[in-house]
């Protein structure tokens, strides 16, 4: 289900070609006021282009009520400011808003509310009045509201604006778990560091025009263009670029994470540290059983994924790396320490991928999966 789109729209955006492809991680990058929000509203038919067409799949969008209703349940938009899109008085009422408008049965709606709230970590807040929530909680509620319509494409406008660092990471973790479930995610932002390791298809806008589409490293290598777009190079990119230039080597292949970059500078070969993976679906975890299986006590423990967090809370486990779990485990391994990561059943692939990608930068880490 891809989106194709070439259009112009009053003064806001002009001659924009944009494609969001199925199952991909797409990013619209640009400074404030460059037209990102206008583009987003074209994607769900709220704004109509003055010229050009928006295609959903193979069909051009038609602006009649039936088509739009279906389109908007397939394409959910989460706005930057949660107060702009939370209209109801309690959390569950707001999450129910979308599904009820689609005419679903009360039972179905109830189920969806439960699952959406669980996904964003707000179960138990169902009957809380909205004005009692903090900003971060409201953001999660608006995300739950968008998920409740079971979208195929989720568009997030500045998803981490105003969030503190830990919440930001949690939001991106949720985005990653959605991708694993087959939902395409489009993020619009000006935070280059947030998306550098995440993006697959990058689109850059400036003053209403699309000035770049393609690979992130290609864009960030062009410093003047980055500068003109009101952005900056991601810190890892910049560090890598400068360091490699100083050492007289070429910056490519571009490390995207801290561990990749450090590994490139100081490749450890085969590291003695191992990463143990424990997959969970949210059930209680027996710490003794794990330690026995591993043969070691007191290993640092990391957690990644919403179900994993639930397990950990339930089991009252002592967690060392609550955020950025995968990176932390890799780092431990690089200094020859073992570590354990508790991860959602569906997200094990993210861990193995990360370790695999590290090989290209000169470090090999062995993974052991714990099976009971």
């Amino acid at each position: 289900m891809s989106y194709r789109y070439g259009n112009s729209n009053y003064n806001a955006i002009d001659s924009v070609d944009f494609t969001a492809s199925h199952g991909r991680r797409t990013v619209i990058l640009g400074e404030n006021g460059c037209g990102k929000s206008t583009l987003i509203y074209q994607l769900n038919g709220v704004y109509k282009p003055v010229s050009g067409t928006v295609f959903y799949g193979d069909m051009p969008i038609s602006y009649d009520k039936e088509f739009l209703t279906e389109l908007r349940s397939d394409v959910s938009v989460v706005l930057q400011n949660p107060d702009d899109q939370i209209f109801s008085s309690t959390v569950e009422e707001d999450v129910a808003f979308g599904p009820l408008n689609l005419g679903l049965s009360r039972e179905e709606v109830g189920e969806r509310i439960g699952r959406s709230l669980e996904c964003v970590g707000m179960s138990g807040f169902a009957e809380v009045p909205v004005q009692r929530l903090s900003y971060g909680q409201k953001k999660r509620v608006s995300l739950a509201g968008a998920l409740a319509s079971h979208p195929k494409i989720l568009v997030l406008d500045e998803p981490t604006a105003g969030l503190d660092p830990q919440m930001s990471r949690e939001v991106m973790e949720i985005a990653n778990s959605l991708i694993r479930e087959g939902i395409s995610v489009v993020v619009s932002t000006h935070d280059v560091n947030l998306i550098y390791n995440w993006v697959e298809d990058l689109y850059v806008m400036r003053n209403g025009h699309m000035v770049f589409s393609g690979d992130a490293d290609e864009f960030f290598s062009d410093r003047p263009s980055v500068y003109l777009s009101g952005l900056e190079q991601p810190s890892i990119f910049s560090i890598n670029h400068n360091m490699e230039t100083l050492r007289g080597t070429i910056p490519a292949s571009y490390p995207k994470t801290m561990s990749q970059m450090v590994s490139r500078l100081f490749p450890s070969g085969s590291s003695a540290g191992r990463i143990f993976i424990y997959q969970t679906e949210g059930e209680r975890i027996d710490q003794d059983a794990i330690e026995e299986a591993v043969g070691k006590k007191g290993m640092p423990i990391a957690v990644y994924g919403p179900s994993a967090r639930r397990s950990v809370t339930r089991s009252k486990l002592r967690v060392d790396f609550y955020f950025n779990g995968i990176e932390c485990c890799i780092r431990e391994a690089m200094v020859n320490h073992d570590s354990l990561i508790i991860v959602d059943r569906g997200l094990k692939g993210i861990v193995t991928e990360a370790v695999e990608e590290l090989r290209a930068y000169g470090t090999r880490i062995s993974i052991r999966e714990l099976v009971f």
Partner: protein
Amino acid sequence: MSAPLFRTEGLFFRYEGGRGDALADVNITIKEGARTVIMGANGAGKSTFFYHLNGVLRPSKGSVFFRGEKIPHRGKALRKLRSEVAVMLQDPNDQLFAPKVSDDIAFGPKNLGLDAQTVGERVRDALYITGIESLEGRSVMQLSFGQKKRVVLAGALAMHPKVLIMDEPTAGLDPQMSKELIELADELHHLGTTVIFSTHDVDLSYSWADEVHVLRGGRNVYSGSSERFYDDTSEVYLSGLVEPAMYDINVSISELAGCPVEPFPKTLPQLMAKAVPSEGPGTVHILPVEGPVDRELFSSLTSGSGMSATGVYGTNARKSAEASKLPIDYFFGADEGCIIEALHGKDTLICCDRSLTDLLISKIGSMSRFGTEVPYSLH
């Protein structure tokens, strides 16, 4: 630099009808001339704390001192305090009360009871420093978020404060605007206005702050230098923060390369110098500017074999360069950018405000702590 500017003693505060203390037993000393950052997650009490520094909120228990005297809560003394301590809130929309930009900037000075001519002068100066002269007659409602933030800053500066407190100054700003704002904060601080801000952007505070105070759930859990705070990973996590990239990389690299963690690089050039000692760094040429830039000198320096890049540092230099339409590569971030180029062995030229030359020189000089001496030349 060590005279206490603000001091709180056993500060407790609870909002009416609030559950729990918004601030509990806070004992913080903010020193004059120290670049201070208050850090903490959302809801930790940073804004509440700031409101105590200019008398908007009254402690439920405990006291707050400004320059050794207890903060007043009414009358002339309070008005004087507020003219000396300017607070800028996070959302500019909450702080704009007049239809036109110049009217809003004049709000503060007018409330100080100054005569029309002084008010006009202050407005003009404020517009100049913040770089928004072109917005003078515009309606406030039409401005973008970043422009509104600058109008609010201008409004605060028009009161000629001795202390400028900013709550999340870079929230919502795109990367370049953020850099511009922080560079301006640097300039103001160096020229005598103590700048204090709050943020949860750990990278920003790590590179800028001399001293940090960390708030968690209304309590002050740490006061001191940045690097010591990040040593305690569980404290960082509990406070809702993460380690800055620079800190992380330094620790990882030091561990792998087997070299000591200190000194802690706070900026990219410092990190580069520490990790990869440069052989034959280039020279940073500094051209002090006071008034219009000497075009001839500029051209003579940049022509020929010379400079791989040019930059400007400081409001006056920037304005002059713009007015003279000089070719400049680094309008912002010249300090970092040109030093990096120097590490790559290239020569660069920075047109710098005369009053900021010593600041620039000290930034260049700091590189020697990290293993590379970067030469500079003052013209």
